[in-house]
Protein backbone atom coordinates (compact mmCIF):
# COMPACT_ATOMS: atom_id res chain seq x y z
CA UNK A 1 0.00 0.00 0.00
CA UNK A 2 1.29 3.47 -0.83
CA UNK A 3 1.53 5.99 2.02
CA UNK A 4 0.17 9.32 0.82
CA UNK A 5 0.00 11.36 4.02
CA UNK A 6 2.16 11.37 7.14
CA UNK A 7 3.71 13.66 9.72
CA UNK A 8 6.59 15.72 8.31
CA UNK A 9 9.85 14.44 9.78
CA UNK A 10 10.78 17.93 10.94
CA UNK A 11 7.79 17.88 13.31
CA UNK A 12 8.05 15.98 16.59
CA UNK A 13 5.43 13.42 17.57
CA UNK A 14 3.82 15.85 19.98
CA UNK A 15 0.13 16.73 19.67
CA UNK A 16 -0.43 20.47 19.15
CA UNK A 17 -1.95 22.35 22.08
CA UNK A 18 -3.67 24.87 19.81
CA UNK A 19 -7.41 25.53 20.01
CA UNK A 20 -9.77 23.83 17.54
CA UNK A 21 -9.84 25.75 14.28
CA UNK A 22 -6.65 27.71 15.02
CA UNK A 23 -4.36 28.47 12.11
CA UNK A 24 -1.09 27.76 13.95
CA UNK A 25 -1.41 23.97 13.63
CA UNK A 26 -1.88 24.20 9.87
CA UNK A 27 0.98 26.64 9.56
CA UNK A 28 3.32 24.49 11.66
CA UNK A 29 2.53 21.56 9.45
CA UNK A 30 3.18 23.34 6.16
CA UNK A 31 6.41 24.85 7.47
CA UNK A 32 7.41 21.30 8.45
CA UNK A 33 6.57 20.09 4.96
CA UNK A 34 8.64 22.87 3.37
CA UNK A 35 11.61 22.09 5.64
CA UNK A 36 11.38 18.42 4.62
CA UNK A 37 10.92 19.13 0.94
CA UNK A 38 13.83 21.59 0.84
CA UNK A 39 15.93 19.24 2.98
CA UNK A 40 16.61 21.97 5.54
CA UNK A 41 16.16 20.10 8.82
CA UNK A 42 19.89 20.02 9.52
CA UNK A 43 20.61 23.63 8.65
CA UNK A 44 17.57 25.63 9.71
CA UNK A 45 17.10 27.47 12.99
CA UNK A 46 13.70 28.77 14.09
CA UNK A 47 12.94 31.58 16.48
CA UNK A 48 9.55 31.25 18.17
CA UNK A 49 7.82 34.26 19.72
CA UNK A 50 6.19 35.13 22.99
CA UNK A 51 2.56 34.38 22.18
CA UNK A 52 0.43 31.35 21.34
CA UNK A 53 3.29 29.82 19.33
CA UNK A 54 5.81 30.18 22.15
CA UNK A 55 5.85 26.41 22.51
CA UNK A 56 6.76 25.87 18.84
CA UNK A 57 10.02 24.29 19.97
CA UNK A 58 8.01 21.42 21.39
CA UNK A 59 6.63 20.69 17.91
CA UNK A 60 9.44 21.41 15.46
CA UNK A 61 12.26 18.90 15.37
CA UNK A 62 14.81 21.54 14.44
CA UNK A 63 17.07 23.85 16.43
CA UNK A 64 15.04 26.66 18.00
CA UNK A 65 15.90 29.62 20.21
CA UNK A 66 13.29 31.54 22.16
CA UNK A 67 13.01 35.30 21.71
CA UNK A 68 11.40 37.67 24.15
CA UNK A 69 8.29 39.56 23.10
CA UNK A 70 8.93 41.49 19.90
CA UNK A 71 12.66 40.88 19.67
CA UNK A 72 12.65 38.03 17.15
CA UNK A 73 14.05 40.16 14.34
CA UNK A 74 16.96 41.39 16.46
CA UNK A 75 17.74 37.89 17.68
CA UNK A 76 17.54 36.52 14.12
CA UNK A 77 19.86 39.32 12.98
CA UNK A 78 22.55 38.31 15.48
CA UNK A 79 22.11 34.64 14.73
CA UNK A 80 22.08 34.89 10.95
CA UNK A 81 25.08 37.19 10.91
CA UNK A 82 26.92 34.61 13.00
CA UNK A 83 25.75 31.71 10.81
CA UNK A 84 25.34 33.15 7.31
CA UNK A 85 25.11 29.74 5.62
CA UNK A 86 22.16 28.53 7.70
CA UNK A 87 18.49 29.30 7.13
CA UNK A 88 17.01 31.36 9.95
CA UNK A 89 13.35 32.19 10.40
CA UNK A 90 11.27 33.92 13.02
CA UNK A 91 7.67 32.96 13.72
CA UNK A 92 5.78 35.89 15.17
CA UNK A 93 2.23 36.97 15.91
CA UNK A 94 0.71 40.36 15.20
CA UNK A 95 1.16 41.78 18.69
CA UNK A 96 4.74 40.57 18.78
CA UNK A 97 5.77 41.92 15.39
CA UNK A 98 3.49 44.90 14.73
CA UNK A 99 3.40 46.49 18.21
CA UNK A 100 6.28 45.80 20.58
CA UNK A 101 8.63 44.54 17.87
CA UNK A 102 7.94 47.12 15.18
CA UNK A 103 11.29 48.87 15.48
CA UNK A 104 13.28 45.62 15.40
CA UNK A 105 11.34 44.38 12.39
CA UNK A 106 11.43 47.55 10.31
CA UNK A 107 15.15 48.02 10.89
CA UNK A 108 15.95 44.39 10.12
CA UNK A 109 14.07 44.84 6.83
CA UNK A 110 15.77 48.17 6.14
CA UNK A 111 19.19 46.63 6.69
CA UNK A 112 18.19 43.82 4.37
CA UNK A 113 18.91 41.18 6.99
CA UNK A 114 18.90 37.86 5.22
CA UNK A 115 16.37 35.89 7.25
CA UNK A 116 12.68 35.07 6.83
CA UNK A 117 9.71 35.90 9.01
CA UNK A 118 6.40 34.09 9.25
CA UNK A 119 4.00 36.72 10.54
CA UNK A 120 0.76 35.24 11.83
CA UNK A 121 -1.98 37.84 11.77
CA UNK A 122 -5.14 36.90 13.63
CA UNK A 123 -6.00 40.41 14.75
CA UNK A 124 -5.89 39.69 18.48
CA UNK A 125 -3.50 38.95 21.31
CA UNK A 126 -4.48 35.29 21.47
CA UNK A 127 -2.42 33.89 24.31
CA UNK A 128 -3.28 36.61 26.79
CA UNK A 129 -7.00 36.20 26.18
CA UNK A 130 -8.04 38.16 23.13
CA UNK A 131 -7.03 41.76 23.70
CA UNK A 132 -6.90 44.34 20.90
CA UNK A 133 -3.89 43.91 18.62
CA UNK A 134 -2.19 46.44 16.34
CA UNK A 135 -3.93 44.60 13.49
CA UNK A 136 -7.42 44.52 15.03
CA UNK A 137 -9.62 46.10 12.37
CA UNK A 138 -11.97 49.01 13.02
CA UNK A 139 -15.21 47.75 14.50
CA UNK A 140 -13.74 44.46 15.69
CA UNK A 141 -14.63 43.65 19.29
CA UNK A 142 -11.90 42.40 21.61
CA UNK A 143 -11.55 42.35 25.40
CA UNK A 144 -9.88 45.76 25.29
CA UNK A 145 -11.91 47.27 22.46
CA UNK A 146 -15.41 46.83 23.85
CA UNK A 147 -18.09 47.79 21.36
CA UNK A 148 -15.55 47.38 18.54
CA UNK A 149 -12.30 49.16 17.72
CA UNK A 150 -12.95 52.86 17.36
CA UNK A 151 -10.56 55.14 15.56
CA UNK A 152 -11.03 57.96 18.03
CA UNK A 153 -10.27 55.81 21.07
CA UNK A 154 -8.02 53.10 19.66
CA UNK A 155 -6.48 54.51 16.49
CA UNK A 156 -6.15 52.76 13.16
CA UNK A 157 -4.70 49.29 12.73
CA UNK A 158 -1.17 48.92 11.37
CA UNK A 159 -0.55 47.53 7.89
CA UNK A 160 2.91 46.30 8.71
CA UNK A 161 3.57 44.32 5.55
CA UNK A 162 2.84 47.34 3.35
CA UNK A 163 5.27 49.35 5.48
CA UNK A 164 7.91 46.65 5.15
CA UNK A 165 7.46 46.50 1.40
CA UNK A 166 8.57 50.14 1.26
CA UNK A 167 11.83 49.31 3.07
CA UNK A 168 14.72 49.21 0.61
CA UNK A 169 16.25 46.08 2.17
CA UNK A 170 13.18 43.86 1.94
CA UNK A 171 13.29 41.34 -0.90
CA UNK A 172 10.01 39.53 -0.74
CA UNK A 173 6.79 40.33 1.11
CA UNK A 174 3.59 38.37 0.51
CA UNK A 175 0.29 38.16 2.35
CA UNK A 176 -1.54 34.84 2.33
CA UNK A 177 -4.14 33.08 4.47
CA UNK A 178 -4.75 29.61 5.86
CA UNK A 179 -8.54 29.62 5.67
CA UNK A 180 -9.04 27.35 2.65
CA UNK A 181 -7.14 24.49 0.94
CA UNK A 182 -6.21 26.79 -1.96
CA UNK A 183 -4.89 29.49 0.37
CA UNK A 184 -3.00 26.92 2.44
CA UNK A 185 -1.21 25.70 -0.68
CA UNK A 186 -0.38 29.29 -1.65
CA UNK A 187 0.98 29.90 1.83
CA UNK A 188 3.15 26.83 1.60
CA UNK A 189 4.55 27.97 -1.74
CA UNK A 190 5.20 31.44 -0.35
CA UNK A 191 7.11 30.04 2.65
CA UNK A 192 9.20 27.85 0.36
CA UNK A 193 9.93 30.87 -1.78
CA UNK A 194 10.95 32.94 1.24
CA UNK A 195 13.41 30.25 2.34
CA UNK A 196 14.75 29.95 -1.23
CA UNK A 197 15.18 33.72 -1.49
CA UNK A 198 17.08 33.66 1.79
CA UNK A 199 19.30 30.81 0.58
CA UNK A 200 20.08 32.88 -2.49
CA UNK A 201 20.97 35.87 -0.33
CA UNK A 202 18.41 38.43 -1.53
CA UNK A 203 17.67 39.85 1.93
CA UNK A 204 14.67 40.16 4.18
CA UNK A 205 11.59 38.11 3.38
CA UNK A 206 8.26 37.98 5.19
CA UNK A 207 5.04 36.05 4.73
CA UNK A 208 2.05 37.52 6.53
CA UNK A 209 -0.52 34.82 7.11
CA UNK A 210 -4.11 35.73 7.93
CA UNK A 211 -5.04 33.08 10.41
CA UNK A 212 -8.32 32.21 12.16
CA UNK A 213 -8.67 32.52 15.94
CA UNK A 214 -12.17 31.12 16.56
CA UNK A 215 -11.69 31.12 20.35
CA UNK A 216 -11.04 34.82 20.67
CA UNK A 217 -13.17 35.86 17.72
CA UNK A 218 -16.05 33.98 19.39
CA UNK A 219 -16.87 32.22 16.15
CA UNK A 220 -17.25 28.66 14.90
CA UNK A 221 -14.13 27.56 12.95
CA UNK A 222 -15.97 27.58 9.60
CA UNK A 223 -17.40 31.00 10.34
CA UNK A 224 -13.90 32.25 11.25
CA UNK A 225 -12.49 31.04 7.93
CA UNK A 226 -15.31 32.81 6.09
CA UNK A 227 -14.72 36.00 8.13
CA UNK A 228 -11.14 36.10 6.85
CA UNK A 229 -12.40 36.19 3.25
CA UNK A 230 -15.34 38.50 3.86
CA UNK A 231 -13.86 41.04 6.31
CA UNK A 232 -10.19 40.63 7.19
CA UNK A 233 -8.85 40.26 3.65
CA UNK A 234 -10.67 43.45 2.67
CA UNK A 235 -8.43 45.34 5.11
CA UNK A 236 -5.40 43.15 4.48
CA UNK A 237 -5.54 42.21 0.78
CA UNK A 238 -3.86 38.93 -0.13
CA UNK A 239 -1.06 38.85 -2.68
CA UNK A 240 2.58 39.67 -3.34
CA UNK A 241 3.46 43.10 -1.96
CA UNK A 242 7.06 43.02 -3.05
CA UNK A 243 9.35 40.69 -4.93
CA UNK A 244 12.75 41.93 -6.03
CA UNK A 245 13.72 38.60 -7.55
CA UNK A 246 11.41 38.89 -10.54
CA UNK A 247 11.13 35.15 -10.05
CA UNK A 248 8.16 33.68 -11.89
CA UNK A 249 8.84 30.09 -10.81
CA UNK A 250 6.45 30.41 -7.93
CA UNK A 251 3.82 32.63 -9.53
CA UNK A 252 0.33 31.74 -8.48
Amino acid at each position, binding site marked *: MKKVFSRPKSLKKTPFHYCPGCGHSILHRIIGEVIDEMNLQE*RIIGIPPAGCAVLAYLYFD*IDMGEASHGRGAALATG*MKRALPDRIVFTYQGDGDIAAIGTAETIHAAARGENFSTIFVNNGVYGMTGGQMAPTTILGQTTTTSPGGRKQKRDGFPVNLSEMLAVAKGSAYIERTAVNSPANILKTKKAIAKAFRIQAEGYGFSLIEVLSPCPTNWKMEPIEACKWIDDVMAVHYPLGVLKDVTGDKRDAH
Partner: protein
Amino acid sequence: MRGNHALAEAAVRSGCRYYFGYPITPQNEVPEYMSERLSKLEDGVFIQAESEIASIHMVIGASMAGGRAMTSSSSPGISLKQEGISFLAALELPAVIVNMTRGSPGLGNIAPAQSDYFQATRGGGHGDYRTIVLGPNSCQELADLTYKAFDLADEYRTPVVILGDGMLGQMMEPVELPPEVQIKKLPHKDWTLTGAKGRPSRFIRSLLLDPFEEEEHNWKLMRKYERITKEEVSWETFFADDARLMVVAFGIAARIAKGAIKRMRDEGLKVGLIRPISLWPFPSKAIKELTKKVRHFFVFEMNMGQMLEDVKLALEGNGEVHFYGRPGGIILTPLEISRVISSYYYQKKLG
Protein backbone atom coordinates in the same frame (compact mmCIF):
# COMPACT_ATOMS: atom_id res chain seq x y z
CA MET B 1 45.56 54.08 24.86
CA ARG B 2 42.18 55.50 25.64
CA GLY B 3 40.24 53.28 28.04
CA ASN B 4 37.37 52.59 25.67
CA HIS B 5 39.83 51.62 22.92
CA ALA B 6 41.83 49.35 25.23
CA LEU B 7 38.62 47.60 26.24
CA ALA B 8 37.49 47.17 22.63
CA GLU B 9 40.84 45.83 21.44
CA ALA B 10 41.02 43.41 24.37
CA ALA B 11 37.55 42.14 23.47
CA VAL B 12 38.63 41.40 19.90
CA ARG B 13 41.79 39.70 21.18
CA SER B 14 39.63 37.60 23.46
CA GLY B 15 37.79 36.30 20.39
CA CYS B 16 34.82 38.67 20.33
CA ARG B 17 33.62 38.77 16.74
CA TYR B 18 30.11 40.07 17.30
CA TYR B 19 29.53 43.55 18.55
CA PHE B 20 26.13 45.23 18.61
CA GLY B 21 25.73 48.71 20.00
CA TYR B 22 23.94 52.00 19.99
CA PRO B 23 25.56 55.42 20.49
CA ILE B 24 25.59 56.98 23.92
CA THR B 25 28.20 59.12 25.62
CA PRO B 26 30.64 58.37 27.27
CA GLN B 27 31.25 55.02 25.55
CA ASN B 28 31.05 55.95 21.86
CA GLU B 29 34.69 55.08 21.28
CA VAL B 30 33.80 51.42 21.82
CA PRO B 31 31.37 51.09 18.87
CA GLU B 32 33.58 53.38 16.78
CA TYR B 33 36.62 51.20 17.39
CA MET B 34 34.67 47.98 16.90
CA SER B 35 33.13 49.14 13.63
CA GLU B 36 36.56 49.62 12.12
CA ARG B 37 38.30 46.69 13.78
CA LEU B 38 35.62 44.07 13.09
CA SER B 39 35.05 45.22 9.50
CA LYS B 40 38.65 44.27 8.80
CA LEU B 41 38.16 40.73 10.05
CA GLU B 42 36.61 38.18 7.74
CA ASP B 43 34.46 36.74 10.52
CA GLY B 44 33.79 40.04 12.28
CA VAL B 45 30.27 41.43 12.62
CA PHE B 46 29.47 44.97 13.70
CA ILE B 47 25.94 46.35 13.73
CA GLN B 48 24.86 49.74 14.94
CA ALA B 49 21.43 48.70 16.11
CA GLU B 50 18.23 50.74 16.14
CA SER B 51 18.08 50.65 19.92
CA GLU B 52 19.74 49.32 23.05
CA ILE B 53 16.98 46.74 23.25
CA ALA B 54 17.68 45.50 19.73
CA SER B 55 21.43 45.39 20.32
CA ILE B 56 21.19 43.18 23.42
CA HIS B 57 18.90 40.79 21.55
CA MET B 58 21.36 40.65 18.66
CA VAL B 59 23.90 39.63 21.30
CA ILE B 60 21.50 36.86 22.36
CA GLY B 61 21.21 35.63 18.75
CA ALA B 62 24.97 35.57 18.18
CA SER B 63 25.54 33.94 21.55
CA MET B 64 22.98 31.21 20.79
CA ALA B 65 24.95 30.58 17.60
CA GLY B 66 28.07 30.05 19.72
CA GLY B 67 29.90 33.32 19.08
CA ARG B 68 31.64 35.58 21.58
CA ALA B 69 29.38 38.63 21.61
CA MET B 70 29.47 41.99 23.33
CA THR B 71 27.49 45.17 23.67
CA SER B 72 28.36 48.38 25.46
CA SER B 73 26.43 51.38 26.68
CA SER B 74 26.08 53.83 29.53
CA SER B 75 23.54 54.09 32.34
CA PRO B 76 20.24 54.97 30.58
CA GLY B 77 21.13 52.55 27.77
CA ILE B 78 21.95 49.80 30.25
CA SER B 79 18.49 50.19 31.76
CA LEU B 80 17.06 49.45 28.31
CA LYS B 81 19.24 46.37 28.00
CA GLN B 82 18.00 44.86 31.24
CA GLU B 83 15.27 42.87 29.48
CA GLY B 84 17.89 41.08 27.43
CA ILE B 85 20.26 40.64 30.38
CA SER B 86 17.53 38.84 32.32
CA PHE B 87 16.98 36.60 29.28
CA LEU B 88 20.73 35.95 28.93
CA ALA B 89 20.82 34.84 32.56
CA ALA B 90 17.69 32.69 32.20
CA LEU B 91 18.77 31.16 28.88
CA GLU B 92 22.26 30.58 30.32
CA LEU B 93 24.00 32.37 27.50
CA PRO B 94 27.45 33.91 27.69
CA ALA B 95 27.85 37.58 26.78
CA VAL B 96 29.81 40.63 27.86
CA ILE B 97 28.00 43.88 28.66
CA VAL B 98 29.97 47.06 29.24
CA ASN B 99 28.54 49.95 31.26
CA MET B 100 30.56 53.17 31.19
CA THR B 101 28.44 54.66 33.93
CA ARG B 102 27.40 58.32 33.86
CA GLY B 103 25.66 60.65 36.27
CA SER B 104 22.03 59.55 36.77
CA PRO B 105 19.09 58.91 37.37
CA GLY B 106 17.16 59.69 34.22
CA LEU B 107 19.27 61.20 31.49
CA GLY B 108 21.54 62.66 34.14
CA ASN B 109 24.72 63.85 32.49
CA ILE B 110 27.80 62.46 30.80
CA ALA B 111 30.18 62.79 33.74
CA PRO B 112 31.64 59.73 35.50
CA ALA B 113 29.63 58.11 38.29
CA GLN B 114 29.23 54.82 40.12
CA SER B 115 25.51 55.00 40.63
CA ASP B 116 24.71 51.79 38.71
CA TYR B 117 26.33 49.55 41.32
CA PHE B 118 22.98 48.28 42.63
CA GLN B 119 21.62 47.66 39.14
CA ALA B 120 24.71 45.74 38.09
CA THR B 121 25.30 43.65 41.21
CA ARG B 122 21.67 42.76 41.94
CA GLY B 123 20.93 41.43 38.48
CA GLY B 124 19.24 44.56 37.20
CA GLY B 125 16.41 43.04 35.24
CA HIS B 126 13.44 40.98 36.39
CA GLY B 127 13.90 37.69 38.17
CA ASP B 128 16.17 35.97 40.65
CA TYR B 129 19.55 36.09 38.97
CA ARG B 130 23.00 37.60 39.20
CA THR B 131 25.59 38.64 36.69
CA ILE B 132 29.32 38.52 37.25
CA VAL B 133 30.36 42.19 37.66
CA LEU B 134 33.95 43.34 37.27
CA GLY B 135 35.06 46.82 38.34
CA PRO B 136 38.29 47.92 36.63
CA ASN B 137 40.24 50.91 37.93
CA SER B 138 42.70 51.56 35.09
CA CYS B 139 43.00 51.27 31.31
CA GLN B 140 45.18 48.20 31.85
CA GLU B 141 42.47 46.58 33.92
CA LEU B 142 39.81 47.54 31.39
CA ALA B 143 41.78 45.47 28.91
CA ASP B 144 42.62 42.61 31.28
CA LEU B 145 39.18 42.25 32.84
CA THR B 146 37.37 42.47 29.48
CA TYR B 147 39.69 39.78 28.15
CA LYS B 148 38.92 37.62 31.16
CA ALA B 149 35.19 38.40 31.03
CA PHE B 150 34.71 36.38 27.83
CA ASP B 151 36.29 33.29 29.43
CA LEU B 152 34.16 33.67 32.55
CA ALA B 153 31.01 34.14 30.46
CA ASP B 154 31.73 30.97 28.48
CA GLU B 155 32.80 28.95 31.48
CA TYR B 156 29.68 29.71 33.52
CA ARG B 157 27.30 30.39 30.61
CA THR B 158 26.31 33.68 32.14
CA PRO B 159 26.39 37.38 31.23
CA VAL B 160 29.36 39.32 32.61
CA VAL B 161 29.16 43.06 33.23
CA ILE B 162 32.17 45.38 33.04
CA LEU B 163 31.23 48.24 35.33
CA GLY B 164 33.38 51.18 34.33
CA ASP B 165 32.60 54.86 34.26
CA GLY B 166 32.96 57.84 31.98
CA MET B 167 36.38 58.71 33.33
CA LEU B 168 37.90 55.25 32.80
CA GLY B 169 36.53 55.12 29.28
CA GLN B 170 37.92 58.50 28.33
CA MET B 171 41.29 58.60 30.05
CA MET B 172 44.52 57.57 28.34
CA GLU B 173 47.22 55.36 29.84
CA PRO B 174 49.87 52.97 28.55
CA VAL B 175 48.39 49.49 28.17
CA GLU B 176 49.99 46.13 27.61
CA LEU B 177 47.51 44.26 25.45
CA PRO B 178 46.77 40.58 25.97
CA PRO B 179 47.61 38.08 23.19
CA GLU B 180 45.04 37.18 20.52
CA VAL B 181 43.21 33.95 21.25
CA GLN B 182 42.67 31.45 18.48
CA ILE B 183 38.93 31.09 18.26
CA LYS B 184 39.14 27.52 17.00
CA LYS B 185 41.06 26.55 20.13
CA LEU B 186 38.44 27.91 22.54
CA PRO B 187 36.58 25.23 24.54
CA HIS B 188 33.82 23.51 22.56
CA LYS B 189 30.24 24.53 23.37
CA ASP B 190 27.83 21.61 23.25
CA TRP B 191 24.64 23.61 23.55
CA THR B 192 24.68 26.04 20.61
CA LEU B 193 22.05 26.38 17.89
CA THR B 194 23.71 25.74 14.56
CA GLY B 195 21.22 23.53 12.74
CA ALA B 196 20.61 19.97 13.90
CA LYS B 197 23.25 18.34 11.73
CA GLY B 198 24.26 14.85 12.83
CA ARG B 199 22.71 15.33 16.27
CA PRO B 200 19.25 15.64 17.84
CA SER B 201 17.63 19.07 17.54
CA ARG B 202 18.03 21.49 20.44
CA PHE B 203 16.06 24.36 21.83
CA ILE B 204 17.00 27.16 24.16
CA ARG B 205 14.14 28.66 26.16
CA SER B 206 13.32 30.43 29.38
CA LEU B 207 9.56 29.75 29.45
CA LEU B 208 8.93 27.13 32.11
CA LEU B 209 5.19 27.03 32.70
CA ASP B 210 5.39 24.35 35.37
CA PRO B 211 6.31 26.16 38.63
CA PHE B 212 8.26 23.12 39.82
CA GLU B 213 10.34 23.21 36.64
CA GLU B 214 10.88 26.97 37.02
CA GLU B 215 11.86 26.45 40.64
CA GLU B 216 14.37 23.78 39.64
CA HIS B 217 15.78 26.15 37.00
CA ASN B 218 16.17 28.84 39.67
CA TRP B 219 17.95 26.36 41.93
CA LYS B 220 20.20 25.39 39.06
CA LEU B 221 21.13 29.03 38.52
CA MET B 222 21.63 29.48 42.24
CA ARG B 223 24.03 26.51 42.40
CA LYS B 224 25.96 28.11 39.54
CA TYR B 225 26.08 31.41 41.43
CA GLU B 226 27.36 29.60 44.51
CA ARG B 227 30.14 28.10 42.40
CA ILE B 228 31.01 31.55 41.06
CA THR B 229 30.97 33.00 44.58
CA LYS B 230 33.44 30.33 45.63
CA GLU B 231 35.77 30.56 42.64
CA GLU B 232 35.73 34.04 41.19
CA VAL B 233 36.07 36.58 43.99
CA SER B 234 38.87 39.06 43.42
CA TRP B 235 40.16 42.10 45.27
CA GLU B 236 43.35 43.90 46.07
CA THR B 237 44.66 45.57 49.20
CA PHE B 238 46.93 48.58 49.49
CA PHE B 239 48.85 49.53 52.67
CA ALA B 240 46.65 47.11 54.60
CA ASP B 241 49.22 45.51 56.88
CA ASP B 242 49.40 48.13 59.61
CA ALA B 243 46.28 50.12 58.76
CA ARG B 244 44.08 51.43 61.56
CA LEU B 245 41.50 52.66 59.08
CA MET B 246 40.60 50.80 55.88
CA VAL B 247 39.10 52.61 52.95
CA VAL B 248 36.77 50.48 50.85
CA ALA B 249 36.36 51.74 47.29
CA PHE B 250 35.99 50.24 43.81
CA GLY B 251 36.78 51.31 40.27
CA ILE B 252 37.92 54.83 39.64
CA ALA B 253 37.03 55.89 43.20
CA ALA B 254 39.62 53.38 44.47
CA ARG B 255 42.17 54.89 42.12
CA ILE B 256 41.50 58.33 43.56
CA ALA B 257 41.55 56.89 47.07
CA LYS B 258 45.00 55.39 46.41
CA GLY B 259 46.34 58.85 45.66
CA ALA B 260 44.76 60.11 48.86
CA ILE B 261 46.20 57.24 50.90
CA LYS B 262 49.74 57.89 49.61
CA ARG B 263 49.34 61.48 50.66
CA MET B 264 48.08 60.49 54.13
CA ARG B 265 50.82 57.89 54.55
CA ASP B 266 53.35 60.65 53.89
CA GLU B 267 51.81 62.43 56.84
CA GLY B 268 52.05 59.31 58.99
CA LEU B 269 48.38 58.27 58.96
CA LYS B 270 47.90 54.51 58.99
CA VAL B 271 45.27 54.28 56.31
CA GLY B 272 44.91 51.34 53.91
CA LEU B 273 42.58 50.31 51.10
CA ILE B 274 40.66 47.25 50.07
CA ARG B 275 39.41 47.38 46.52
CA PRO B 276 36.83 44.84 45.38
CA ILE B 277 37.62 43.93 41.76
CA SER B 278 34.79 41.47 41.38
CA LEU B 279 31.79 43.49 42.58
CA TRP B 280 29.65 40.41 42.27
CA PRO B 281 30.71 38.05 43.69
CA PHE B 282 31.64 40.53 46.42
CA PRO B 283 34.79 39.90 48.50
CA SER B 284 32.80 39.69 51.73
CA LYS B 285 35.13 37.21 53.45
CA ALA B 286 38.20 39.31 52.72
CA ILE B 287 36.51 42.35 54.24
CA LYS B 288 35.30 40.41 57.27
CA GLU B 289 38.80 39.04 57.70
CA LEU B 290 40.14 42.59 58.07
CA THR B 291 38.16 43.08 61.29
CA LYS B 292 40.73 40.90 63.04
CA LYS B 293 43.10 43.86 62.77
CA VAL B 294 41.01 46.92 61.89
CA ARG B 295 37.92 48.38 63.45
CA HIS B 296 37.26 51.40 61.25
CA PHE B 297 36.06 51.24 57.67
CA PHE B 298 35.62 54.23 55.40
CA VAL B 299 33.54 53.54 52.30
CA PHE B 300 34.07 55.99 49.46
CA GLU B 301 31.90 55.84 46.33
CA MET B 302 30.85 58.16 43.56
CA ASN B 303 27.20 57.59 44.47
CA MET B 304 25.01 57.91 47.55
CA GLY B 305 26.15 54.68 49.18
CA GLN B 306 25.45 51.50 47.25
CA MET B 307 28.47 49.22 47.77
CA LEU B 308 28.20 50.50 51.34
CA GLU B 309 25.39 47.99 51.88
CA ASP B 310 27.60 45.09 50.76
CA VAL B 311 30.36 46.27 53.09
CA LYS B 312 27.92 46.36 56.00
CA LEU B 313 26.61 42.92 55.10
CA ALA B 314 30.18 41.64 54.91
CA LEU B 315 31.10 43.09 58.32
CA GLU B 316 28.04 41.54 59.96
CA GLY B 317 27.95 44.22 62.60
CA ASN B 318 31.70 44.09 63.30
CA GLY B 319 33.65 47.32 63.02
CA GLU B 320 32.48 50.85 62.47
CA VAL B 321 31.50 52.00 58.99
CA HIS B 322 31.64 55.53 57.76
CA PHE B 323 30.51 56.60 54.30
CA TYR B 324 31.45 59.46 52.06
CA GLY B 325 30.02 59.76 48.57
CA ARG B 326 29.63 62.29 45.80
CA PRO B 327 26.95 61.49 43.23
CA GLY B 328 25.98 63.21 40.00
CA GLY B 329 29.27 62.96 38.16
CA ILE B 330 31.49 64.83 40.63
CA ILE B 331 35.13 63.71 40.51
CA LEU B 332 37.02 64.30 43.72
CA THR B 333 40.76 64.91 43.70
CA PRO B 334 43.00 62.76 45.93
CA LEU B 335 43.69 65.88 48.00
CA GLU B 336 39.99 66.49 48.65
CA ILE B 337 39.22 62.92 49.65
CA SER B 338 42.38 62.75 51.79
CA ARG B 339 41.06 65.71 53.78
CA VAL B 340 37.73 63.99 54.37
CA ILE B 341 39.36 60.71 55.37
CA SER B 342 41.99 62.26 57.63
CA SER B 343 39.42 64.37 59.40
CA TYR B 344 37.51 61.17 60.19
CA TYR B 345 40.78 59.50 61.19
CA TYR B 346 41.52 62.17 63.79
CA GLN B 347 37.92 62.39 64.92
CA LYS B 348 38.10 58.69 65.80
CA LYS B 349 41.41 59.35 67.59
CA LEU B 350 43.28 56.83 65.45
CA GLY B 351 46.43 58.86 65.38
